């Protein structure tokens, strides 16, 4: 797993070019008010920060299975910088948010942009430091991991409250932040699942140990599906039971009409039902194909759920969004793939 230094400089120019293309798309004709940019941001920041968070948590609790995957999970760190750049582009699209009609002390354009950019940069810095120390197996990696996790929780909470929840201002739910960072870890685990299953196929040696690791990973996904179910239910139940008009409207908008109703059920299916029932039998937990499938379903669920959250900002301009996702996906795979070389 040695990194090939000659490729490193290539990555940053590619990132710049992609950012340029995205900037062009977003400001060009048919840009659709920035919803595609926001969607790209909220999906990828979850995945990228989630991967690193999974590595950090595993380092903290000395989980064994991470050793084989650490390089891959840490490789998306530079993408955090890219996400910061993309976030600043959101400044041109800030009219997306309803609170722009009535700016307050917390939700106003300059403060919104500055605090989020700062937190993103801090998270990036913490991730860089943690990744470097962790690769060297330095003793300070533990404190670096803790620092990263603090930044991660802060960053995901801001993503939840600022980027997403404020689309429905003044509606709020106090669980949103926690819900987001749990989902980030969940999706990080799903990415780990895919990577591990891919590797599992390629290398057959040490099969017994690998099987154990795969089972541990599948069990974690299983456990997280229950945790997610619990958090989802908690949030739903309180709002449903309270039935306060200003609060319940958020749910009503999303579960009465097609296609939102169907998408809502799909989210529960992807995040809870699929991992829970597919991993309930003992044997499926050690099948690489099954782990890949479930992980893909979970990431699909994440995508659909982000769409639901972004409902007030929709519709998405399809072409632009596809191009942006493709660009991001390529950058992500390039980074991860390079670390596996």
């Amino acid at each position, binding site marked *: 797993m040695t990194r090939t230094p000659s490729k490193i400089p290539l990555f940053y120019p590619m990132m710049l070019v992609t950012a340029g293309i995205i900037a062009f798309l977003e400001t060009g004709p048919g840009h659709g008010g920035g919803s595609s940019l926001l969607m790209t941001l909220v999906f990828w920041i979850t995945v990228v920060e989630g991967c690193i968070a999974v590595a950090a948590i595993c380092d903290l609790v000395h989980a064994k299975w991470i050793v084989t995957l650490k390089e891959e999970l840490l490789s998306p760190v530079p993408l955090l910088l890219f996400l910061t750049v993309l976030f600043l582009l959101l400044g041109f699209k800030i009219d997306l948010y309803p609170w722009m009609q009535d700016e307050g002390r917390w939700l106003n354009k300059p403060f919104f942009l500055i605090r989020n950019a700062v937190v993103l940069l801090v998270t990036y810095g913490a991730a860089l430091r943690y990744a470097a120390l962790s690769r060297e197996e330095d003793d300070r990696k533990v404190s670096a991991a803790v620092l990263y996790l603090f930044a991660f929780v802060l960053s995901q909470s801001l993503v939840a409250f600022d980027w997403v929840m404020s689309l429905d201002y003044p509606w*709020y739910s*106090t669980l949103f932040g926690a819900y987001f960072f749990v989902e980030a870890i969940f999706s990080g685990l799903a990415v780990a699942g895919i990577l591990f299953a891919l590797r599992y196929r390629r290398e057959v040696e040490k099969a017994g140990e690998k099987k154990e690791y795969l089972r541990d990973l599948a069990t974690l996904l299983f456990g997280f599906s229950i945790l997610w179910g619990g*958090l989802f239910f*908690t949030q739903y139940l*309180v709002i449903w039971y309270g039935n*306060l008009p200003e609060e319940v409207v958020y749910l009503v908008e999303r579960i009465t009409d097609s296609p939102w109703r169907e998408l809502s059920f799909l989210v529960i299916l992807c995040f809870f039902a699929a991992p829970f029932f597919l991993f309930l039998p003992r044997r499926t937990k050690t099948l690489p194909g099954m782990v890949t499938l479930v992980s893909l379903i979970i990431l699909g669920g994440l995508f659909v759920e982000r769409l639901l959250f972004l409902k007030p900002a929709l519709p998405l301009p399809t072409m632009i969004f596809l191009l942006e996702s493709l660009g991001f996906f390529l950058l992500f795979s390039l980074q991860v793939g390079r670390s596996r070389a």
Partner: protein
Amino acid sequence: MNPSIPPEQIEQDVLAAMKKPGLLYWLALLFCGTVFIAGMVCWGYQLKTGLGVAGISHPVAWGIYITNFVFWVGIAHSGTLISAVLFLLRARFRTSFNRAAEAMTVFALMVAGLFPLIHLGRTWVFYYLIPYPNQRQIWVNFRSPLIWDVFAISTYLTVSLVFFYVGMIPDFAVVRRYAKGIRKKIYQVLSLGWEGRLGEWRNYNQLYLFLAAFATPLVASVHSIVSWDFAMSILPGWHTTIFAPYFVAGAILSGTAMVITLVVPLRKTLSLQRYITDDHFEAIAKILLFTSLIVSYAYIVEPALAAYGKNPFEIEEFRYRAFGDYGTLFWIMIFCNSILPLALFVKRLRRNIHFLFVLSLFVNIGMWLERFVIIVTSLARDYNPYAWGTYHPSIIEIGITLGGFGLFFSAYLVFLKTLPVLSITEIKERSDGTGNHS
């Protein structure tokens, strides 16, 4: 982790705790028993005179009885966490705490279960809470969080008891060899004739795994349901979505503190330093720190989002909580639960048993106050200023509260002398250095 200790040595060391108690033990038991009985006398007086002897009234109809209920349910939680969750996570240090923690769970739940009954006032009709076909021709309201409580707490008590007992079966088989006379007969019956056969172990291991797997989501749901007693209402400060995970984390925080409070003196008086090492205390201190951080996160998010939104009632509620009639209690709570545990980031303090013990006492106080502050402040100030009021516990309520502590510690003292305080079997497994733990 531990140097290999011969199994006979382990048995003798652990069972030494069950020897004839000394004077100090009897004095402690006498004290706790007296406090308990005094509490029961208070309850008797309340039953005879009526609920008016308690300070609860309009608008604060839930006072320290409910505070105690939530507090004791919370204490129970970390027992299950240590025995079930750490088992699933294969954390090795669990073995040092699990028996003491499980016993704590069972006793804390018994005390917790008492308080809603006390709070009922007309305790003798408590069976109205249970769904059964009856001459009143009416069923309980399954949409009420209070009925969820009945189900959750009784299930939790049952499953905890089963888990506690199952964990002890192989240990009873050890105790029966050492005990004499009538005690021998009792332990023989309790051990069910366990012989440690291959088939027995296989079923046993599977059962234990399943019980752990059931207990883990159960423990999360129980305190979630307790939190929903509040969150299902539409009271400012109660009706909020973060309540369930926040309460669960708080429960584990208070329970972990209580485990430390109980195990530190236990280790000292029974000289179990060989089995419960400083490393193990450090590990449990990390759990304390972690849950304290989650609780602090909730402390920040709740008022922050009240300020973010446009609901004046929510804003006023959080202002009142921090700067109103109960403001002092609020800041003591913040200090005990959020600020003081931050010291655990220092490794030296994590390993300092005296510091941990003192800290655990502070956290216990802080968590009790947390429940008090949440319950009372929201009721004292709701939407209508004409319905505002304050609450102070009466002497009877305080007596019953202390009685609850008396019951808990008496039960714990009895446990120390009747059951093995550490899991002998698991310590043997661990001490072999080849246990199935990573």
